[in-house]
């Protein structure tokens, strides 16, 4: 099934993200060894994989934070590697990136954190416009009361949500979530899962959700892709992928649902 979805060598015209034979190594460490992936408009896909398999590296390549060694990455019809600095800035406004470590700016208040992408990308905004956008973004994640706090005063779950709000402020077309629920308790994790689903409905975003958390994968995604040894060995619906008798897949499942 997975070869039918990802024809090697040919980019699918309906996909928003189209990756072909992507490779990336750091010295002798061969992290990505031929990734193929297509994500269609409005689709949410979860990427699963063990720690250190290169999941973060993959989405950092998608937004051009890291350069691939070879292969092609076409996002929203543009080859990410060919973009000029200016085109890259415009492109990145359409892609929201929620970082694994939330990446809130420690030296800035929550308000300033949320304003940052806005005032840096959109010219000629009035103070009132900015305030309105910030208030709306905070309201959307249910954290209006934190507006004047500093990131260090927030809990891990709040920081994650602020990080998501900060990326939503530019109304992206694509959302990339790097382990949105890692380090959070089950109840907060469910809140984040719900937030991801709300975001999806609200802006009709296409998303890649990186996670170790199978509940998160199951509730937020249409398909899951399993990263094993630098490749997507399994791509399909949650139930299809985990029906697989492969030991490496089973281990992952058993750990998450140990009774």
């Amino acid at each position, binding site marked *: 099934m997975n070869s039918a979805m990802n024809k090697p060598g040919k980019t699918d015209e309906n996909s928003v993200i189209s990756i072909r034979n992507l490779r990336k190594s750091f010295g002798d460490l061969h992290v990505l060894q031929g990734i193929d992936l297509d994500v269609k408009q409005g689709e949410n896909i979860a990427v699963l994989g063990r720690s250190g398999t290169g999941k973060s590296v993959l989405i950092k390549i998608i937004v051009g934070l890291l350069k691939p060694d070879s292969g092609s990455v076409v996002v929203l019809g543009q080859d990410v590697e060919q973009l000029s600095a200016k085109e890259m800035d415009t492109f990145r406004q359409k892609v929201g*990136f929620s970082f694994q470590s939330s990446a809130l700016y*420690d030296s800035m208040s929550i308000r300033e954190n949320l304003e940052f*992408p806005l005032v*840096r*990308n959109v010219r000629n905004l009035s103070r009132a416009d900015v305030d309105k956008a910030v208030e709306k973004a905070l309201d959307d994640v249910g954290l209006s009361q934190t507006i004047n706090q500093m990131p260090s005063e927030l809990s891990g779950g709040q920081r994650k949500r602020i990080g998501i709000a900060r990326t939503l402020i530019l109304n992206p077309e694509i959302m990339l979530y790097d382990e949105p629920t890692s380090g959070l308790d089950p109840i907060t994790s469910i809140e984040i899962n719900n937030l991801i689903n709300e975001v999806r409905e609200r802006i009709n975003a296409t998303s890649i959700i990186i996670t170790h958390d199978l509940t998160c994968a199951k509730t937020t995604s249409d398909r899951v892709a399993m990263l094993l040894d630098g490749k997507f060995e399994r791509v399909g619906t949650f139930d299809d992928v985990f029906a697989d008798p492969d030991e490496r897949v089973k281990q992952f499942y058993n750990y998450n649902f140990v009774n």
Partner: protein
Amino acid sequence: MFLALADVFAFISRFFRELFLPPYEFKEIIRQCYEVGFRSLLLISTTGFITGMVFTNQSRPSLAEFGATSWLPSLIAIAIVRALGPLVTALIAAGKVGSSIGAEIGSMNVTEQIDAMEVSGTNPFKFLVVSRVLATSITIPILTMYTIFVALIGGFLNVNMTEQTSFTSYIQEVFGAISYVDIFASSLKSIVFGFTIGMVGCYKGYNSSKGTEGVGKAANAAVVTSMFLVFIEELLSLQIVSSFR
């Protein structure tokens, strides 16, 4: 070793390239100048004052042997303006400012804040590195002038107590001893010190290894390396200035 050197060179040349390319982060530069000045002011006031006082006190016996304690003000002036002022300021700033730049940028690197800036359409090198290096290069010379002033006051209090030298004659002797070359050379030297401290802090932070221990290492390396470089530069400036004198 050579790889590291090439890396440093690339970092410095990137600084000069981005320095002249718009957009300019004026607001951030001013904020950083304020931070640098504010962070080290109290420490510099006390160390500068004590340096002036102690140096005067310790120089007195040697001069007294030749019956030349009247030379004390000019000796103080030369020592403080040419060497002690810039050096004390640079060392304090390396410890205070260099370490905090290393730690701050290091932790921004570790917690992906630098990546976050980049995807938000902001050049993090310009926003973080250029603004900080400019801030240290501008503020540390100003702090140096301040240190020199405070140290001279410290020296004056000491000679005033012991030799009863009046303030006007002290000032006259101080300005009689130093020349414009001294002031110019000291300012230039402090700019180089400031540049070094900012650059080393940013470089160590920007290239810190991932993980929390990377932050501590970056802060520590920033202090050790910039102090070492400040002394090397002091030595070089001695050679250069004496060839002009």
